[in-house]
């Protein structure tokens, strides 16, 4: 007998113990978040080109605030700060926020909406993975509801070469020194629509559409041709988002069927809406290219945390979200509806989870064979 007296206690310290399985796919949360951030970058640079450097400032403010908030939360919950930051989820939130909020939002509003998004929406529910609502969307809705006039005044019209007009200095003055954003807004609008400035009442197309709808007019006030230079920025931005989305699909980070079903439902719902409410519902192409539909399709509704769990649930979720986007755009009182639609669907996600519970293994089993 070699050594019968050997005890498990002593050898436990010598041998490594780890639970099965001993293999791992290698895809980790941090990697997922970094790839998502990278996929957002083309659209982000294009946004800077068409909207000026306000976007960069917003990103810096958001990221800084998010970093501080995450660290505070980690300290309060006595977790390792380093571990908490290494999942890079704050980076994705900051990027999406900087792309959704108006580029000239005053810094204090950006800070407060980020604090709201990270501390209240995310960390108060238990941190990454536990939040019910999408933090970025909740932050945007926070801004939209608490300061609608600021949003109206700081929205910019995308135009070719806006980066030359809305330079780093000019945007810095507006964001941090509280200079009036109106001159810059007007300039960009003139740049964008040199021929028919007067026809457009708001800064963005959706804004003017909403104003027209409120006034009781027809929404088909201008013919929209996306190849034409007026509206081409929208098309290129959409393409940039789509490219990022394809990258995510290539890495199998987002669920393909969900995106496809979302696009299909937008088309179906808007075509149906066009049939019955032709004066308020936009046609499918405009639904896709204006507002935040594209970023929502690839980056926001695909957020796993605030989504339903199973494949069936996610598909239901995306159908619901598409329906709400079309509905609120047609009848809501805000210019864009994506944030509201996403948050409403987030709230419905637990219910969807219950309704789409998957059958258990062998439940269709019959005595046969």
């Amino acid at each position: 007998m070699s050594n019968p007296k050997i005890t498990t206690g002593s050898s436990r310290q010598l041998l490594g113990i780890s639970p099965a399985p001993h293999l791992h796919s290698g895809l980790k949360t941090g990697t997922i978040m970094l790839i998502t951030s990278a996929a957002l970058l083309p659209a982000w640079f294009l946004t800077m080109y068409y909207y000026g450097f306000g976007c960069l400032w917003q990103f810096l403010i958001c990221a800084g605030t998010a970093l501080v908030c995450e660290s505070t939360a980690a300290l309060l919950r006595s977790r390792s700060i380093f571990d908490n930051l290494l999942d890079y989820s704050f980076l994705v939130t900051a990027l999406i926020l900087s792309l959704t909020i108006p580029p000239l939002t005053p810094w204090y509003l950006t800070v407060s909406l980020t604090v709201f998004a990270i501390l209240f929406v995310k960390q108060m529910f238990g941190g990454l993975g536990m939040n019910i609502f999408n933090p970025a969307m909740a932050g945007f809705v926070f801004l939209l509801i608490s300061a609608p006039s600021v949003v109206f005044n700081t929205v910019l019209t995308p135009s070719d070469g806006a980066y030359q007009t809305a330079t780093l200095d000019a945007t810095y003055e507006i964001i941090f020194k509280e200079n009036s954003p109106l001159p810059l807004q007007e300039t960009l609008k003139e740049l964008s629509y040199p021929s028919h400035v007067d026809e457009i009442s708001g800064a963005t197309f959706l804004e003017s559409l909403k104003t027209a709808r409120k006034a009781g007019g027809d929404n088909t006030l201008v013919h929209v041709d996306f190849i034409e230079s007026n509206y081409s920025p929208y098309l290129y931005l959409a393409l940039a988002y789509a490219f990022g989305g394809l990258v995510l699909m290539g890495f199998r980070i987002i669920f393909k069927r969900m995106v496809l079903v979302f696009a299909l439902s937008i088309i179906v719902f808007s075509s149906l809406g066009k049939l019955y409410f032709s004066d308020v519902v936009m046609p499918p192409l405009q639904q896709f290219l204006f507002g935040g539909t594209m970023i929502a399709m690839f980056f926001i509704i695909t957020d796993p945390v605030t989504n339903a769990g199973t494949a069936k649930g996610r598909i239901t979720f995306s159908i619901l979200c598409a329906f709400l986007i079309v509905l609120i755009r047609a009848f809501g009182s805000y210019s864009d509806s994506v944030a509201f639609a996403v948050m409403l669907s987030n709230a419905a996600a637990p219910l969807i989870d219950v309704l789409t519970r998957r059958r258990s293994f062998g439940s269709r089993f019959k005595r046969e064979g």
Partner: protein
Amino acid sequence: MELDKQRHKISAGKIWKFFGGLKLNDLKNTSADRILDLKLPNLITLPIDRHLGTGGQVLVTVGERVKRGQQLTAPDSQNSNLVPVHASTSGTIMSIAPQVLPHPSGFSGECISIRPDGLDESIEPKPLSRWESLDPQVLIARIREFGIEGLGGAQFPTAAKLQSALSESSPDYRLLIINGCECEPMVTCDDRLIQEKTSDLLQGIRILKKILNPSEVLIAIEDNKTEAIDSLRAAINNMRSSTGECIGTLRVLPTKYPQGAARNLIKALTGIEVPYNVHTSKLGIVVQNVATVYAIKQAVVDGLPLDSRVITVAGDSLKLNGNIRVRLGTSVRFVLNNFKLKPEFHQRIILGGPMMGFTLPTIDVPITKSVNCVIAPNSSDLPPRNNQHNCIRCGRCARVCPSRLVPYQLYALSKASNHAKARQCGIADCNECGCCAFICPSELDLTAQFRREHAIQKVINELEQRNAVAKERMAAHEARVRLEEEKKAAKRAAALARINRQKSESTDSDKQQDPVQNPQEAASRQVSGGRSAQAQEQTELKISRIIKAKEADAAESMAAEAAEQPAQPEQSTPTLPYNLKRTAAPKHVPEYHKWTAPLKHVPDLTLVGIEHSELKSVELPTKTPEALLSTRESSEPAKPRLPEALKKNSTLKHKR
């Protein structure tokens, strides 16, 4: 009609898709290494706990000389799930004592240790000549007697499986599936066995066919084992051309983990999902691993009991890798030494494949029938898991779970000790394949948590059963007490009535003696009921008098008895000096209290994270499941004081 359609599809070679699963890297570097025989070890340890049952016997004594193939134990004859243990080489019995078992928690169990004498003498092989003409029951008995159990990893007794298929399924459609999938990465022992022992395998399949008489024989093999497929196909064609016998059809399946699990394989081959609470053999579907089939052939045709098996030894911490045939009971240490282990710091030794295998707390454990692989990886080969993050509900686990579960949900429930809800969500369907933990981007130990949950569920089930039995017993007891009381009451009522009757008779006679002088008075007496009250009083008095008389009788008789017995000398307490008495008495009292106080302490349920409401139906006699588990973790060298079932199949969270 539908049934026929399904059968037609099965025989037409349709291959279904089972839900979930993973496409893993093969890592099967050893598939070209021939099976070599490992030399005899210097110690053989054969665990006998799971082979004995309640009425089992050990047939040998310490010091006795045994030969290879000699039967060492006789299992409980009532339990057909038990098979005997055979000596795997010749030598002397060293001890029959508890030894550490190959288990993730390092449990010990009763083992027979043999010191080999190096001669390797074996008893006379007893081949069944002309087995083709024998009754299936004889063959099944042979398979049981020669210790054959499932060698795929579950170690389910083959004879029991075949018997239940024979007796419980309809004879008009039976399906025999030979499982050569071997879906685990790194493991190649079945692959090599198919390549080298092809004709023996076909022989084994013929024996199984003889027993089961199946309508269809499917040999399932994954498409990454090209050489095994080729040799098997050639052998089948050869047999068909030479003897005209069609042994079965080869089904080449796309490689997917965990296709080798019986239920997934059945789904892939037949499209039938067999629920986890139904045995597959009850449907007439028998799945046998190729290694088991080979062992059956050896037992029946060659007359050799199962005393060795093929294992794969792999891992970058070993200088050599390969496939070997080892005698059962050889220690893992011996195997690793022969493959030139170069241990790194905190070397992990994995018993089983990298997906479902477990790390050993000690390598001085025997290789049993369920071990198909020993891996000694280094940290670049199979990198250890880093720290866990929060679940981001990405749903990848739900997409790969072959049992159609939602693992992240189960994980959250199990972590929150919500055992009732976890059961509702199907924790029983989890077969711990490890797909969810493999894919999890947050690197959560999902499978480990589910193993823990399984252990807890087992304890809860046991407690529930115990509780149900106790309740039944209590109800029976109450019913009995009630019956007795009713009888007593009836007796009392009868006695009262009798006394009343006597009383009334006596009063009647009184009346006759004393003629009524005042009939009005008598009538009013009767009407007011005063008389009856009086009678009551009188009867009670009477009863009490009777009781007193009886008591007096009893006292008398006792006194008489006492008088009869010889008077015992009165025990005189030794008189002690006054001060000594004083000091002796208080000395013991505080100690007594000190020792009894902690015993009365009931563990606080909330401390261990169990809510009372969850276990409402479960009466906890002394300890909560978690408390039980924690005692197991702490009381290591001592024999675990746990339910028998828990000891065997459960795993715990290892040392953090």
